[in-house]
């Protein structure tokens, strides 16, 4: 049977199933095949906090969304064109996001009475007509997988588990994906058990062949490669990119990297990744708690390493006292906060941007630090290097605000040349700096950077003591002098404010926008997509996005004042908007969502349309 081939410019697929169904892996493989083909991609995993929520229940549903296109895209897509639902729970949890007409591929074998009841379906939705508005494809995924593996030397359980590869094979056929990378992947993954390699490949091929032969799938789709800048690419998640950025910062500074970390979702993957890179002189320490993790990192910084700690919001709260010590000691320290929905344990696998206030203000005393935020998964690499650059050059703690959305999302990354990365080399103090040529003044500042000398233990002649007690200017001796304290507090604030950061850029292609959308961090994609959509419809809107939240770019005030309206969408209750209003006396309009999910471009588009049209 010859099938019709239809060209599409973009597709959004969501793989959904039980947390034990291997949906993250399936999505990951589909993404990798898609990357090989040269589409632009953006992905979004969504999984429960429980490792194994009860099987077949709504809380146990895990999903992976992949958006791919023949042009450059900014988000994992608002609404899936295709839903793969491995059980009734997956259908029920995701159907609300599907536009009418979308394809739904369901594993009919799981639609038993018991499973339907478990999620509150009174009637079987595959039969009661409730899915009439969709293109429903009922497939006996489990039975066909087991059937295809009848001759294989694997247990029934292992055969059944291969059903995700059947689904992947079917979807790979539907969207004409090259599958060599998946075959190679399976050969690597199950290297120790050749029978599983064979079974999983057979299941994949059975799914592919099923697509080719069944009449239910009459059309096959193609999405042509996107026009992307020349170069070598890889698909990368934010946490991976961030880890590589930290390794790169070590290489470019020539310093050993010391990571102190305590396991916490969604930051642990950075600890896992960095623990593999010891050959770069990276030491990772899984500390006894969050406080020890940052303490050890600060101790290592004191000794001349690039000290780093990684965590999420609750961990930053615990680290606050040590960040303040680092402010007083004026030592480099990188604190990475992969934000998640709070307060307290909140929703650990869901995203939010509600730690901005904590990063800017959440410490005792006047304790200013630099704050940076990546805008996309691959940008985490460059943001990590920028955080390290500021920390090392200006001898200060820097908080990097990632979040679950960029940390676990992925996109193609045009690999940079190592030589093009910033030179982060630093000079340790080696000689006394006092006028008499003999005294060492640990708090005598560099006139340009306002940083104090980094005199590491082991340097003869520079023995000195530092600590949390207020220090006299220059000598660093303990001082309770009122005028000195006032001076030191102001100096610590001024030196952070004086860190030069690049101007914020405004995207306003036609230059006639009267409304500016200002965002920071991971909302870049959805805001950008919404702005593009509005412009395509002839509604001018300008976009500016902050990487540096402390200090803020020098031109920001002028940028804000150049527009009639400034809208600030955030995944919190208006934390940046509040700062903007306070600092620049601009009547910024906050637009907030705290659902644990990223903004959809469509939602931002309709909100911005109102603002642009009605002022």
């Amino acid at each position: 049977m010859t099938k019709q081939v239809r060209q599409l410019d973009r597709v959004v697929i969501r793989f959904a199933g039980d947390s034990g169904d291997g949906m993250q892996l399936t999505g990951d493989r589909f993404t990798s095949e898609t990357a090989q083909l040269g589409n632009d991609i953006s992905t979004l995993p969504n999984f429960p906090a429980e490792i194994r929520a009860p099987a077949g229940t709504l809380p146990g549903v895990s999903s992976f969304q992949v958006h791919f296109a023949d042009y450059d895209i900014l988000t994992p897509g608002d609404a899936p064109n295709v839903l793969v639902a491995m059980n009734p729970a997956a259908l029920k949890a995701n159907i609300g996001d599907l536009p009418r007409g979308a394809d739904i591929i369901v594993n009919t074998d799981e639609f038993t009475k018991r499973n339907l009841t478990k999620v509150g379906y009174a009637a079987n939705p595959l039969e009661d007509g409730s899915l009439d508005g969709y293109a429903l494809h009922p497939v006996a995924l489990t039975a066909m997988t087991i059937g295809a593996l009848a001759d294989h030397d694997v247990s029934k359980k292992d055969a059944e588990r291969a059903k995700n590869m059947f689904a992947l094979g079917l979807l790979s056929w539907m969207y004409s994906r090259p599958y060599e990378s998946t075959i190679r992947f399976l050969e690597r993954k199950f290297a120790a058990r050749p029978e599983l390699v064979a079974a999983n490949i057979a299941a994949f091929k059975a799914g592919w062949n099923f697509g080719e032969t069944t009449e239910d799938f009459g059309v096959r789709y193609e999405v042509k490669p996107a026009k992307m800048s020349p170069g070598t690419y890889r698909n990368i998640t934010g946490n991976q990119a961030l880890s590589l950025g930290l390794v790169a910062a070590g290489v470019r500074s020539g310093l050993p990297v010391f990571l102190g970390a305590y396991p916490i979702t969604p930051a642990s993957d950075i600890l896992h990744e960095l623990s593999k890179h010891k050959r770069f002189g990276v030491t990772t320490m899984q500390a006894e708690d969050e406080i020890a993790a940052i303490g050890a990192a600060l101790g290592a910084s004191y000794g001349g390493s690039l000290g780093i700690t990684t965590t999420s919001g609750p961990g930053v709260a615990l680290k606050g006292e040590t960040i303040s010590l680092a402010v007083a000691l004026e030592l480099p320290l990188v604190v990475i906060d992969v934000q998640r929905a709070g307060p307290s344990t909140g929703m650990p696998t869901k995203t939010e941007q509600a730690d901005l206030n904590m990063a800017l203000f959440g410490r005792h005393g006047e304790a200013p630090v630099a704050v940076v935020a990546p805008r996309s998964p691959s940008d985490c690499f460059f943001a990590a290097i920028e955080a390290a650059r500021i920390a090392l050059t200006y001898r200060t703690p820097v908080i990097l605000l990632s979040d679950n959305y960029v940390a676990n999302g992925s996109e193609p990354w045009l690999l940079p040349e190592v030589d093009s990365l910033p030179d982060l080399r630093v000079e340790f103090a080696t000689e006394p700096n006092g006028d008499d040529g003999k005294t060492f003044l640990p708090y005598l500042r560099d006139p340009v950077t306002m940083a104090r000398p980094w005199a590491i233990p082991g340097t003869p002649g520079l023995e000195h003591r530092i600590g949390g007690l207020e220090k006299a200017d220059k000598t660093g001796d303990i001082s309770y002098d009122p005028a000195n304290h006032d001076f030191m507090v102001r100096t610590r604030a001024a030196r952070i404010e004086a860190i030069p950061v690049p101007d914020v850029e405004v995207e306003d292609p036609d230059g006639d926008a009267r409304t500016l959308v200002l965002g920071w961090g991971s909302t870049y994609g959805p805001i950008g997509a919404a702005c593009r959509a509005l412009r395509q419809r002839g509604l001018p809107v300008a976009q500016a996005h902050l990487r540096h939240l402390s200090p803020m770019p020098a031109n920001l005030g002028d940028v804000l004042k150049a527009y009639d309206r400034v809208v600030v969408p955030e995944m919190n209750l208006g934390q940046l908007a509040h700062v903007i209003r306070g600092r620049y006396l601009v009547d910024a309009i906050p637009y907030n969502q705290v659902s644990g999910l990223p903004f959809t471009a469509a939602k931002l588009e309709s909100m911005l349309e109102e603002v642009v049209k009605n002022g």
Partner: protein
Amino acid sequence: MAEPVALKLTQKDFKSDQEVRWCPGCGDYAILAAVQSFMPELRIPRERTVFVSGIGCSSRFPYYMNTYGMHSIHGRAPAIATGLSVSRPDLSVWVVTGDGDALSIGGNHLIHALRRNVNLKILLFNNRIYGLTKGQYSPTSELGKITKSTPVGSADSPFNPLSLALGAEATFVARTIDSDRKHLQSVLRAAAEHQGSAFVEIYQNCNIFNDGAFETLKDPSTRDEYLIRLEHRQPITFGADGQRCVVHPPGGFGLEVRETASVDPADIVVHDATVAEPAYAFALSRLPGLDLRNTPIGVLRQVERSSYDERVREQTDSAKAKATGTPEEQLAGLLTSGDTWTIL
């Protein structure tokens, strides 16, 4: 671990230019002087010696040592010192802490430093009171202790710091007294020579808020009756004429004190700090009663176990040994690892 070199340093070299500001008569002065006069013996250059402290009276210590030093956060010195020690094996890192600092707010860091066996020399000045905050009871204050925060007596049972350290699998555990410079220095010497964490409890008098807490161990008329001076490979006897001894009673778990005359000399326990089983040192740590009778001082335990620093370094070194190319080349290789594709 910092290697000794030929150096001629004196006590004076280790005195910083800062005015020492403990209360007159505080036991900390004696400890400071003992440490300053002991340091030259180690032949470690001043610049390779670092004192890290937390918060409390004792934690002012680093300011008075003309070495590198950090006065950090309440309770966190072991954590900060761990990062320093692991990343800088060429340094000799000392932690100075107190009973509140190490056992209350910093209890977690202390036990984890000890179990990891980080190469730190930890000096815990135990005065059984909060001095800097003006006289609240501490985790080593006796049950029923009347202080500003416990006007009718503390309801908390105290920690026995040595038992705690031994429970955390410390490889070196010792106790000494502020006023006995010779003994203090002998313990410091043993601690400095130890590879891994050395935990030293120093009984220290706070003459302002808990004066005389250890007087029975110091007063010439009582001390011989109260103190057990442990000597490696010597039978444990004490009292002015050795009239008391320590035995391991048959059938019992621990150790007990007996009249020497009443036991077969062969039954007297011969002290051996290197006994692998921590139960022995633990039993020693349990000997003193509430009135401080039968307080052992000296090195209770000193066993060999690789340090965290060494194990971490081994992993890094072996990974580095396998790597080829410059760091930049390796980085380029790392960036392009995984599934990549090229657009022309």
